[in-house]
């Protein structure tokens, strides 16, 4: 393979890296005041470029640099992640400007580095590469968590996030090295053939490794019971970063989980295949139930959404456990639905925070009067998050349940469906306050002088518009999207 070809295959990554470097450079220049508003535009331009590069690689299927693979699966994951990142940058741009965040150049550069990390993790066919990519993502996200200095809660959140993640990364690393020790390789396919050759003898050694790896990745996608710091982190973090943390890392986490388990431990194994699936099955059930029930008692909107997002990870695990092309396609679709639903809801929260001045559920009273142009999209996004038809979230659940039932995992679908009902109750508490309660007099003063129906700032309006359109459009175009995603899923499921 020539250098040009390799560079072309790396185009999305290179664009993100180059744009990130440019932003760092711009951040170092003494730009003041108004001109800084162009920084998010530069970041968005980079994301759009990477998106374009990724889409153009749809029909490529090639391994390169021995640890990366450019195929439909990686492209699909990249596209979803870049769309999510674009929405996050839109929201952050607004936030950084109004809250006067210092050092904005590096702020956006970090987002782009995360994009780079995801593109690498989705393409990684080697344990080391996957781990490095996830660590890059992790490091960037620790910094983002604590980026707003001067807020002690943000500092606390960053430290918590950092310590917890590092500890779990160490566990993952230990598990991966164990796997390497047993099979003699870090390449996924090589592991698969080693395991296939002598499954029965290797099983006792691989099982502990599996548990360690599963724990580590469960933490990456914030599955219960490894989700502990997530809601805490989110309470102390700027809302746009919360939006980022809730959606983006789990895209990378799921990409790695799917590729790792399906390629390294393919379904044609006799016992080990059942082993990892049982492990993730339990994790899925616990995550859905734990996340949903914890959300019932949350009074902080950010925490409420954080717990609902934790539960989301459980639903996605259903599709992974199903381990079929249909299941993987459903997971990818669900990631897309989650991108629009969860990010849309958080965008709305950021927009409403200008009125409420707080994230307490009660402070949202009567917002449908004060800001109907935000409250209604918020409702749509919340309904999508909880899987109400005919929105994107519903189609995602439908695909996930169908994949589970096809594999004879009816009970998992039942657990999911009942949690869906409970999660609607959680959302209802917010919706009730938003739409039924009269406006609180105090909320008026909290945000200072508030006009009755102020316009939503442009970046937020754009992000909200994209999210709501996405929630409807993905459901409407679900047929063709699922067909595309099945093409992507075949890459990992039919090995």
């Amino acid at each position, binding site marked *: 393979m020539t250098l040009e070809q390799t560079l072309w295959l790396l185009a999305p990554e290179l664009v993100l890296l180059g744009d990130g470097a440019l932003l760092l450079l711009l951040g170092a220049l003494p730009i003041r005041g108004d001109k800084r508003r162009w920084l998010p535009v530069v970041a968005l331009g980079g994301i759009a470029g990477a998106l374009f590069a990724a889409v153009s690689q749809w029909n490529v299927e090639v391994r390169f640099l021995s640890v990366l693979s450019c195929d439909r699966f990686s492209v699909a994951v990249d596209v979803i992640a870049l769309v999510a990142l674009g929405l996050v940058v839109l929201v952050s741009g607004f936030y950084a400007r109004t809250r006067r965040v210092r050092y904005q150049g590096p702020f956006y550069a970090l987002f782009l580095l995360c994009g780079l990390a995801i593109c690498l993790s989705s393409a990684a066919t080697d344990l080391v590469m996957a781990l490095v990519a996830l660590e890059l993502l992790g490091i960037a996200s620790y910094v983002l968590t604590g980026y707003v200095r001067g807020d002690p809660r943000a500092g606390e959140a960053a430290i918590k996030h950092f310590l917890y993640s590092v500890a779990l990364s160490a566990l993952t690393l230990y598990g991966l090295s164990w796997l390497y020790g047993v099979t003699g390789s870090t390449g996924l396919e090589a592991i698969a053939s080693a395991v296939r050759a002598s499954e029965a003898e290797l099983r006792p050694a691989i099982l502990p490794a599996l548990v360690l790896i599963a724990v580590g990745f469960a933490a990456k996608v914030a599955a219960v019971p490894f989700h502990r710091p997530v809601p805490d982190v989110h309470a102390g973090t700027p809302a746009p970063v919360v939006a980022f943390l809730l959606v983006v890392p789990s895209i990378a986490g799921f990409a790695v989980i799917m590729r790792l388990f399906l390629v390294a431990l393919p379904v044609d194994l006799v016992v080990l295949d059942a082993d990892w699936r049982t492990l993730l099955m339990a994790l899925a059930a616990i995550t859905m139930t734990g996340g949903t029930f914890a959300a019932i008692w949350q009074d902080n909107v950010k925490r409420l959404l954080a717990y609902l997002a934790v539960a989301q990870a459980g639903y996605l695990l259903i599709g992974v456990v199903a381990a079929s092309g249909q299941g993987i396609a459903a997971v990818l679709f669900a990631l897309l639905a989650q991108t629009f639903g969860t990010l849309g809801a958080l965008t709305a929260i950021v927009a409403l925070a200008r009125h409420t001045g707080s994230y307490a559920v009660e402070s949202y009273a009567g917002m449908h009067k004060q800001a109907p142009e935000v409250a209604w999209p918020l409702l749509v996004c919340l309904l999508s998050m909880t899987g*109400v*038809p005919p929105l994107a979230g519903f189609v995602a659940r439908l695909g996930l349940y169908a994949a589970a039932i096809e594999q004879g995992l*009816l009970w998992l679908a039942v657990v999911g469906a009942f949690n869906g009902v409970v999660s609607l*109750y959680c959302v209802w508490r917010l919706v*009730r306050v938003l739409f039924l309660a009269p406006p609180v007099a105090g909320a008026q003063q909290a945000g200072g002088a508030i006009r009755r129906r102020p316009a939503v700032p442009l970046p937020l309006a754009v992000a909200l518009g994209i999210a709501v359109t996405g929630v409807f459009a993905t459901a409407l175009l679900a*047929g063709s999207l699922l*067909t595309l995603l099945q093409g992507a899923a075949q890459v990992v499921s039919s090995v």
Partner: protein
Amino acid sequence: MFLILAVPRDDARTIRRIGVAFAIAALVLSIVVWVNVAQVAADESGSLAYPGEDHAWISAPPFNVRFTLGADGLSAPMVFMTALLTTLALYYSARTLEVRVKEYFILFLVLETCLFGTFLALDLVLFYVFWVVGLVPALLLVGVWGGEGRERAALKLFLFNLLGSVMMLLAILAVYSQAGTFDVLGAAAARPFSGAETPWTARVAFLAFFVAFAIRLPSFPFHTWMPEAQTAAPTAAGTVLAGAFLGTAGYGLIRIALPLFPAPFAYFVAEAWVLPVLAAASILYGALVCLAQWDLRRLVAHLSVVQMGFVTLGVCAAAVGHAIDPAAAASALAGAAMQVFAHGAIAGALFFLVGILYRRTDTHDLRSLGGLARRMPHAYGVVLVAGLAALGLPGLVGFWGELFVFKGSVGGAIAPAAFVGALGLLFAAACVVWKVVQHGFLGEMNGEKWVGLEDVTTWEKVTLWPLLLLVIVFGVYPAPLLDIVNAALALLLERLP
């Protein structure tokens, strides 16, 4: 059929006009559908569905969810009833509603769309989508514009129904894994669960469907959300909820539960005895609650429970009898379908009347009323007609439904349940005559409080008369309705194994 109110501004008058106009347009279209269906039925060409929309929605290889709509003799009358009730309800609302007019009308039309969709969908997933989406406007209509206790009632309505719905969704997926299609007719034709495996999968899947329908129907013991929601709902929304929203469940029982699961259905009727017991219990329990209830609205809501009990009873009789005695089964099923339609008109009229009374007297307590007939002779007439229709007085529309259900069920295995049902009807009759008529309308005027009462005004008559007209016309001459219902049901029964 589908209309979206896209002209929302702060001008309440325009909104009211547009809302009512669109509802009338839908009503006209629904009559067109009925006429078309009647023609197809008259041709006896044997085609089931009046062809409607058919588009692929989610057609990724393993999935094939289609956007398929179609009407036949079973759905056309219900679509008409939905359209009529919505039109009347919006007209009533246009006269009475002052707050948040815009959202109210939009939600109401969304509700109407969803109800249409539920009656017309020929794809299981599409049916589910409309079934569940309809809950959202119902939730908000009760929760935002309702009376006392509205939030609790709305939430209860929503969660009860949603719980049933998700069970139905899983059952739909189970059917899909067996039949390989989401098409309502195709799935029934594929005879899911007829393989050599244990019948329990089929039974569990059937129960999931049944519970979803029983919750919305509502059938004892899943009915508790309904009186609460009806008490809290604004009058206009209450009529549509009772008349059309509940009807979707009766329709679902006939259209989906019976053709998809004939064997499990028969099992739970004849061998396990669960369903006839529930049906009889609904009738009897509803009637007894009516006897004990002094709140007029709750009383009317429980009358709905009684009437819907007959729907369950009729479908049960058909499920167990279609192989043994086809004529009786056809009669029972036609009775159930007629009952769903009749209940729409009767409950609609009664809820309107309760609302009209409440606007004047500010109370639902029958004990504080009395002697109203003297002041409101017109209202008294409406109560008599609708109340007696609910009890199946010959010459009124409710009679045919109940007659056919009895006729179809007394000979079969579920005769005891039918007798209990008859007993329940007796209690309900006693209650209506004794409580509503005697306490509310006849007897002594309760002090001087109600002397100044105004009788039903002209515009209120507009909301009541179309429904009463239906009650009387189809009571005296049910043939137009019965013919198309029978044509559709004959086909449905023919396809059962």
